[in-house]
């Protein structure tokens, strides 16, 4: 079937009081459905999962870089209890600078800045559990 024939088939289908057409002939198969004025049979909620933040690929929120947790564990702002936090809001950090640690299985994992910038927000509380992909910092690139 060429496009011209297909066009004719569509004309035919549209002109008739038919809502669905399925045709199979000699290896050729076509299935057509007419638009229902009100929304069709079952439609999906919204694409799922895709909006999530993929760690390691900092996503932009407004014009900020978002640093997300690449691991599951406990978020600490300082290297040890009582010590100074690695960073505070409004600090300017360099690419590769340690921003926090996430403890997992007794190991302190240092999370570094992806780019130079100003710390706009520190999202989890100190010693709060964080999951994979959870946003930790917003950085305004400089």
């Amino acid at each position, binding site marked *: 079937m060429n496009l011209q024939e297909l066009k004719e088939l569509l004309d035919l289908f549209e002109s008739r009081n038919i809502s669905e057409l399925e045709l199979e002939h000699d290896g050729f198969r076509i299935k057509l459905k007419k638009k229902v004025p009100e929304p069709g*049979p*079952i439609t*999906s*909620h919204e694409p*799922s*999962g895709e909006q*999530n933040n*993929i760690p390691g690929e900092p996503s932009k929120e407004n014009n900020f870089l978002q640093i997300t947790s690449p*691991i*599951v*564990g*406990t978020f600490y702002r300082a290297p040890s209890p009582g010590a100074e936090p690695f960073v505070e809001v409004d600090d300017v950090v360099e690419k590769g600078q340690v921003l926090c640690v996430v403890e*997992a*299985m007794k190991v302190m994992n240092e999370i570094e800045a992806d780019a130079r910038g100003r710390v706009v927000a520190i999202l989890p509380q100190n010693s709060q*559990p*964080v*999951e*994979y*992909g*959870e946003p930790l910092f917003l950085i305004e690139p400089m």
Partner: protein
Amino acid sequence: MFIRVYPWLYLLEEFTLFKKILVANRGEIALQIIRACKELGIATIAVYSLSDKDSLPVKYADEAVCIGPADSSNSYLHLPHIISAAEITGAEAIHPGYGFLAENVHFVEVCEECGIKFIGPPAVTMRQLTNKWEAKQVMKKAGLPILPSNEHRITKLEEALKIAREIGYPLLIKAVAGGGGKGMRLAAKEEGLETSFIMAQREAQAAFDNPEIYLEKYIEQARHIEFQVFADQWGNVLHLGERECTIQRRYQKILEETPSPAIDKELRREMGRMAIKAAKATNYVNAGTIEFLLDKGGNYYFIEMNTRIQVEHPITEVVTHMNLIKEQIRIAAGEPLSRQQKEIKQLGHAIECRIYAEDPDTFAPSPGNLTVLHLPGGHGVRVDSAAHADYAITSYYDPLIAKVIAHGQERAEAIAKMVRALEEFTIEGVKTSIPLHLKILRDKDFVQGQFYTDFLDRFIPQK
């Protein structure tokens, strides 16, 4: 372990099981574990990959922790994320389900080190059983029949030829360190042995860094029969009868039933005794499955022991009226077995069909969105599924859509019930294995109970 105070159940009795269990799995088995915990008044934590964030286990669990991206090596197989999720949520125990980390000895060891109860056997027992060759030697010592084989690891062809003559052809050449069919070769006659031996050795070296080989008698028309056992930490062991798992394609089961049409009361008692012996020989604790090969003459051979809950456990549940997941949890919490052997009765006949999103002719996975999903129901029909309308079957995971379990008074009724259930089952958006299942259920040999491991060959297009 804590005293559980659940708002309304506590009126009746006090539970001393776990307070919180982390479910280290996805899909329908994660849902079954969450359901069992809910009924026991235990809080649950679902762990999930990014692509599962809208899944039913995440929705129904009390807490949920994202542990990584869609690909399972970085999520459901990623040990540190899972252990860490247990630590940050205060889970006392982890149920591994089946697949993923369920038979990973290292995972069990880490759980033990971290003081998290692994719901399954101890690491030391699991280690013995996951090496399939070692397991056979242990079972042989315990008095279980194993397939004629050699007790030594072979490295030289002359040795292999000599032993092959003793065992007789056809035989299988297997890697000592093997698994998953790697390093496995069939030798029909002596002519083919040399080539197959060399190939198997090479594969074994490449896959397991260990070229050691052993030979095993090959049975052409056999049945796969497995026995469900349970053992508690107080030394009690019982079996819940057999499951007939002969119908497989590419080493994957697609239809199971219990009781097996090939096993009578006497053979069941004998094989059951052997299954219990196997569990005792390894100081087994929790749920386990002893796999046997049964030949046409009624001879059976120990093949391996699986140290987890099986996909097909529901057929045992419906005929014994037990909940195996709950039994696993109770045993892990230190309770004794809930029943004695003499209290176990198999009532009626049950069949399970594993409905996969796949092409029923080529078996190729058929990923996609379930645009329409209507599950069967009514008398004697159970459906275990985490699918829902708009559910996405992705190529990241096993394309299982649902397990349908039909329970009849006798085998003929169970078959008829499964047929009508599968005829009601409506799935649009992906191809499914339902047409294949219906072909099997209507096959004359199947209906008469006459089938062996080669049964599915007739439904597979020959290349």
